[in-house]
């Protein structure tokens, strides 16, 4: 009995490893998208396995450097020191593929009458210089800042594009995901938060410089807070990883991008 069990395990083990699993890790913003891609891909190719986990762009890139993932999803471009680390660890350059575009939407509570902010006003708010909504044309109410954990690609994006690399005000509450930010802002009258457009439910998206985060504005780059979404691999993708990345860029993959709420690039 015991021996037959052992035999079965011994026979199965190579079969499992032969089937191969592509691991995808990274951006929390992209995790829903990556999961949909993986599901559709595995439906098309039942023999292939794709395993998706989130954690943040930094987490995914760190995993790529440490060799614990095949594909890193990132909602920001890789930093030069990260590229150097990939090169040092793997001996090849990190290979970048843009798979979709995203606009970072700014959320406020649905009851907030403020409709539009400039990037400069937004910067003042997140630096902690502007603390009351009446300073930007709203009601007399304290601004309650919501931010993301510093492992989030959206955090880095806002830090670079809005704060010009200065620090967030210490009052900014850091929440573990865009969904948590949306949930908090929908409950807090004076709240303001940021995140991928795909999540905006029950809150109001602000116009930035008078431009709404719509598809045309994001794709054309007219919306000031728009960004590409990346997939990183060690060297140009090969084998099963290449098949997966190609699927993401295929018409079926790009349709999923639109379904999830991001902007297809093709």
């Amino acid at each position, binding site marked *: 009995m015991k021996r037959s069990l052992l035999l079965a395990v011994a026979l199965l083990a190579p079969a499992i490893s032969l089937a191969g699993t592509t691991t995808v890790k990274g951006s929390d913003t992209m995790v829903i998208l990556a999961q949909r891609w993986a599901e559709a891909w595995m439906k098309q190719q039942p023999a292939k396995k794709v395993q998706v986990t989130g954690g*943040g762009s*930094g987490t995914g890139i*760190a995993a790529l450097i440490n060799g614990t993932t095949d594909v890193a999803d990132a909602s920001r471009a890789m930093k030069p020191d990260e590229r150097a680390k990939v090169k040092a660890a793997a001996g090849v350059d990190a290979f970048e593929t843009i798979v979709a575009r995203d606009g970072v939407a700014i959320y406020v509570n649905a009851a907030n009458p403020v409709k539009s902010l400039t990037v400069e006003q937004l910067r003042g708010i997140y630096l902690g210089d502007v603390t009351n909504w009446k300073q930007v044309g709203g009601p007399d109410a*304290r601004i309650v800042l919501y931010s993301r*954990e510093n*492992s989030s690609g959206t955090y*880095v994006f806002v830090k670079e594009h809005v704060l010009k690399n200065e620090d967030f005000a210490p009052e900014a509450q850091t929440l573990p995901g865009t969904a948590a930010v949306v949930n908090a802002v929908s409950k807090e009258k004076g709240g303001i938060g940021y995140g991928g457009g795909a999540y905006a439910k029950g809150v109001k998206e602000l116009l930035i410089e008078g431009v709404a985060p719509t598809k045309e504005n994001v794709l054309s780059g007219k919306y000031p807070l728009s960004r590409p979404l990346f997939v990183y691999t060690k060297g140009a993708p090969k084998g099963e990883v290449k098949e997966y990345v190609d699927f993401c860029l295929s018409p079926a993959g790009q349709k999923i991008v639109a379904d999830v709420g991001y902007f297809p690039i093709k």
Partner: protein
Amino acid sequence: MEVAAISAGGPPAASASRSRRRRAREAAIQAVITAVALTGIAAVALIFVFVAREALPILFDPQIRGEASLSKMFLPQVLRQGRPPGFMWQPVSSVPKVSMIPLFVGTLKTTLVAMAAAVPVGVAAALFSAEFAPRRVREVVKPVIELLAGIPSVVLGFFALMVMASALQAAFGFTFRLNAVVAGLALALTIVPIVFTVSEDALTSVPRSYREASLALGATRWETAWRVVLPAAAPGVLAAVVLGFGRAIGETMIVLMASGNAAITSLSLGDSVRTLSATIAAEMGEVVFGGAHYAILFFIGVELFLFTFVLNTAAGAIVQRLVRRMTASDA
């Protein structure tokens, strides 16, 4: 045992070999128990060694010290041009800010709120259960409170995030929905059963003769409970408080979900806070292995370890003094 063996009769030689066998068995059992205990101690020691080893570069690696020296962690730093220096925790930045002060303040605030709420409730409930409750009531109260300890902290955290935060904001008008009070009260829910269980055991193990003597001298039941039984159980109650404190300082999930995680240095309990443990949990996933940020997070782990260690040692010393004083006054 020995007597029973002899009275059972049998030739003296057989009895001697049996007692030898028994002694060998005793020795084996003792060895196993000692090994188990030593394994526990060794595990704790090894964990500490591992955590400390990962934190050490803060003191010795010149490159990491440039980013995270002790003075950067504990003294006020210049944050923005033309502003007074202050304390800021923002380790992912072009110039990382790694002040521990806001994290200490946050941990202290949530822990104090939790203890202020949990200790009176836990001790009072234990006093009620041990001294006043009819047996039937006690048989319900005790398991129900102890069941509270079995609720996963992520569930309590979610409850605090969704329900308690809104209710408390409506009641007290907090500017920040998630704050030290919300996190502290949610923490109190996990500490009450600890304080309750341990104090209850201490109260019930006070000898009956104390109560009988007190009642015989004309004291009421309340006077007996408050002036005689509770002081007699003081060492155990203190141990309960220390255990609760240790849990409060180390609890992660609840504070991560309910505190708002904003590293603010302020005394107001209505502000959001970021605690030491939540910082490790939130940031460990993303750090680059072996970097400055990584070492700092392990350094926080060392700090938490030292806090609990010092606290437990101090409490142990106080308990011993209490016991000595009480036994001395007995004589």
